[in-house]
């Protein structure tokens, strides 16, 4: 098991190195194949580890492997160690599995892009970083993986580096992620100060003893860890980077900003569950922020018109569910939703990529309509992904979302507030998902759809930036000249079909009364949990009924508003114009952060540059340089270039010295 566990990390690392150093020697397409095979190898290793783990006795399924020590001295135990337990293997399986499919999709999708090899090098590096994060056996490796993931995300968002909107989105994502990194590091300090070990298992084992009299420090540390989790998982108020991150290529959105990286925060909270159970305050903060995020993101999703941003906001909203679940103690439910969400959200993004290709790069829902006949396969994928996302009965999302809300309801009392918020969010989810699908696929076919029905894929006369309309070319640093749609690329169809099947049946791993595969598998990790949330049978059945009614009702509402009565959406918008303005402006979070953080900071920077630097820096440093300058000017005056003057100086000098000795000796 040790070999296969390390191979999970080494495969993507090898892929990164081969694609980034060998791309000049390898034929162009080979980098894509190498990249995909590396991740497939990691998936195979993860699967082998999974099998080996199941062979072990249940109470010895948490193993730490240590490759070498960085610094083991008094009080610090920094090792390169990985923790292999059901949770990390589960995460590794989800990450590598979805990544393999997305790599396969990218092989076709990015064919014409001039940065093909670079794309796969970045993508492999991302998967490596993510696996470091989930396999980490101590806080140090976790922080390293956390920071690597942020860097990989930055590289991939700004992949089209000549697009100014993409580079500024990358910078925004990186800066907000660094805020999270700082939170994570400071939180680690708070915890390490009392636990005196960086090792996860060591910290958890002695947590109840170490923090018995330091509960304040624990809560502070956990809230700082939550800041890290919120930044990475795009939770309010550190979420504004995620919609902007849609500037990256669509496979990147599918992999990083839907299926894997943004779930790192959920993983972190689940991993730290023994600590969160000791601090009710920190757990409550996580639950509340998750609940607020799922509502805020859901309402914005109703108003925005950019196809990818609608899916991005729905991602935020779904991660809000997961954060709420794992903070509230429904660990298995949260991770279950993480898995099903990875399937259907990656599927939706892949289908969106295909649709955007058919539109020649255009992303606005306002310009799309009637693609149903032109793109039957993409349409099918959208419908399956949409059903799972809106928790249609018997799809994967139905079971996972239901389990989250059922488990939280089982805590009773004030926790019912979160259940109600969850169901309100579910209504919003169904409506905005199907608004997107109805607007893109129903109605009169638009020009691009008609062209495609006649067998001609639309291309913009001049490549342009969909966000600003600026004219671009197709050289490196911009998207390539040819677009690829799923209907015409086998690799894309293959990857999407697998995900579509998983999005439909993935939920059957864990169905109340029938199976509980995931719960049994994850049990060794969460065995010590003090919260045993098991909703009563009645609660489960009521949850199923309410969930089904809400989902079907939401889809029907969307159908009425956007298909049956075409003018109705405008009427609603005018009727509730205040709410619409709030939603379409994303609750003014960007403006708020600009006002509270960006502008004071920019003012401080200008003050430093114009006043502080001019007075203090120039005053101190400037006077020192002036002294040196004056001295050198004096020395320079002697070097006048007159050879005879030098000779005279020499003669006079020697004469003076000679006279001195003569006078002395007499």
């Amino acid at each position: 098991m040790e070999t296969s566990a390390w191979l999970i990390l080494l495969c993507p690392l090898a892929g990164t190195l081969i694609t980034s150093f060998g791309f000049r020697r390898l034929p162009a397409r080979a980098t894509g194949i190498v990249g995909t095979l590396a991740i497939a190898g990691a998936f195979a290793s993860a699967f082998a580890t999974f099998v080996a783990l199941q062979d072990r006795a249940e109470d010895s399924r948490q193993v730490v492997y240590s490759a070498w020590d960085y610094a083991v001295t008094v009080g610090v135990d920094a090792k390169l160690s990985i923790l292999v337990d059901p949770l990390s293997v589960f995460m590794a399986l989800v990450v590598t599995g979805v990544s393999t499919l997305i790599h396969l999709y990218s092989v076709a999708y990015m064919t014409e892009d001039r940065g093909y090899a670079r794309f796969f090098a970045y993508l492999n590096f991302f998967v490596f970083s993510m696996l470091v994060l989930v396999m980490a056996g101590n806080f140090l490796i976790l922080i390293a993986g956390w920071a690597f993931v942020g860097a990989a995300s930055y590289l991939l968002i700004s992949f089209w580096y000549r697009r100014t909107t993409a580079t500024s989105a990358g910078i925004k994502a990186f800066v907000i992620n660094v805020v999270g990194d700082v939170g994570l590091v400071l939180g680690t300090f708070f915890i390490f100060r009392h636990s005196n070990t960086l090792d996860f298992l060591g910290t958890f084992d002695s947590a109840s003893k170490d923090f018995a009299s330091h509960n304040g420090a624990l809560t502070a540390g956990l809230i700082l860890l939550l800041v890290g989790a919120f930044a990475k998982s795009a939770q309010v108020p550190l979420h504004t980077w995620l919609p902007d991150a849609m500037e990256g290529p669509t496979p990147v959105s599918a992999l990083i900003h839907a299926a894997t990286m943004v779930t790192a925060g959920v993983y972190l909270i689940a991993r730290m569950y023994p600590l969160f159970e000791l601090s009710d305050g920190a757990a409550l903060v996580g639950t509340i922020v998750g609940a607020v995020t799922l509502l805020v993101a859901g309402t914005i999703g109703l108003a925005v018109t950019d196809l990818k941003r609608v899916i991005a906001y729905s991602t935020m909203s779904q991660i809000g569910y997961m954060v709420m679940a794992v903070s509230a103690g429904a660990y298995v439910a949260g991770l279950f939703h993480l898995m099903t969400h990875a399937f259907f959200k990656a599927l939706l993004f892949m289908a969106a990529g295909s649709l955007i290709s058919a539109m020649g790069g255009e992303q606005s829902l306002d310009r799309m309509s009637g693609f149903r006949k032109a793109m039957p396969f993409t349409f099918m994928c959208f419908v399956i992904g949409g059903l799972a996302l809106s928790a249609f009965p018997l799809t994967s999302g139905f079971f996972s979302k239901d389990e989250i809300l059922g488990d939280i309801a089982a805590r009773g009392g004030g926790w019912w507030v979160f259940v109600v918020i969850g169901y309100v969010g579910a209504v919003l989810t169904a409506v905005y998902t199907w608004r997107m699908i109805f607007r893109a696929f129903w109605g009169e076919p638009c020009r691009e759809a008609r062209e495609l029905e006649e067998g001609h894929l639309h291309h913009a006369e001049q490549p342009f930036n969909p966000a600003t309309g600026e004219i671009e070319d197709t050289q490196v640093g911009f998207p390539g000249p040819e677009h690829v749609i799923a209907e015409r690329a086998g690799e894309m169809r293959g990857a999407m079909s697998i995900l579509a099947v998983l999005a439909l049946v993935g939920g059957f791993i864990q169905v109340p009364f029938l199976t509980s595969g995931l719960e049994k598998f994850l049990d060794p990790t969460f065995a010590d949990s003090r919260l045993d949330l098991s909703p009563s049978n009645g609660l489960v059945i009521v949850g199923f009924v309410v969930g089904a009614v809400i989902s079907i009702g939401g889809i029907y509402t969307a159908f009425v508003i956007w298909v049956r009565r075409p003018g109705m959406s405008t009427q609603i918008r005018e009727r509730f114009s205040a709410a619409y303005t709030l939603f379409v402006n994303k609750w003014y979070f960007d403006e708020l952060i600009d006002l509270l953080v960006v502008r004071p900071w920019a003012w401080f920077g200008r003050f430093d540059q114009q006043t502080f630097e001019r007075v203090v820096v120039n005053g101190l440093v400037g006077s020192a340089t002036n002294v040196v300058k004056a001295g050198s000017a004096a020395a320079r005056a002697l070097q006048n270039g007159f050879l005879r003057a030098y000779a005279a100086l020499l003669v006079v000098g020697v004469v003076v010295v000679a006279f001195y000795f003569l006078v002395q000796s007499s």
Partner: protein
Amino acid sequence: MSVSWFLVVSALVFSIGAAGVLTRRNPLVVLLCLELMLNAANIALIAFARMWGNGDGQIFAIIVMVVAACEVCIGLGLVVAIFRRRLPIDVDEIRELHG
């Protein structure tokens, strides 16, 4: 004959050389004057060698001659180079290396 006479001659020759170096502007003459200064030193060295009845001073004088020969080689080479580039043959005009 007292060693003083030799030293007086040496000092006179040295002073003439130094005055020439300081006052003349033609590099060839400056080089000649430098030779005068070196040979004035040689006279003094040999005078002292004779006074002590010891050969060390003579050896020094020979070394000084060798050095003088080298120096003249380089000096004349520079003069030729200046001439070839049609620069003024005047040490006061060649002053590009000022600070």
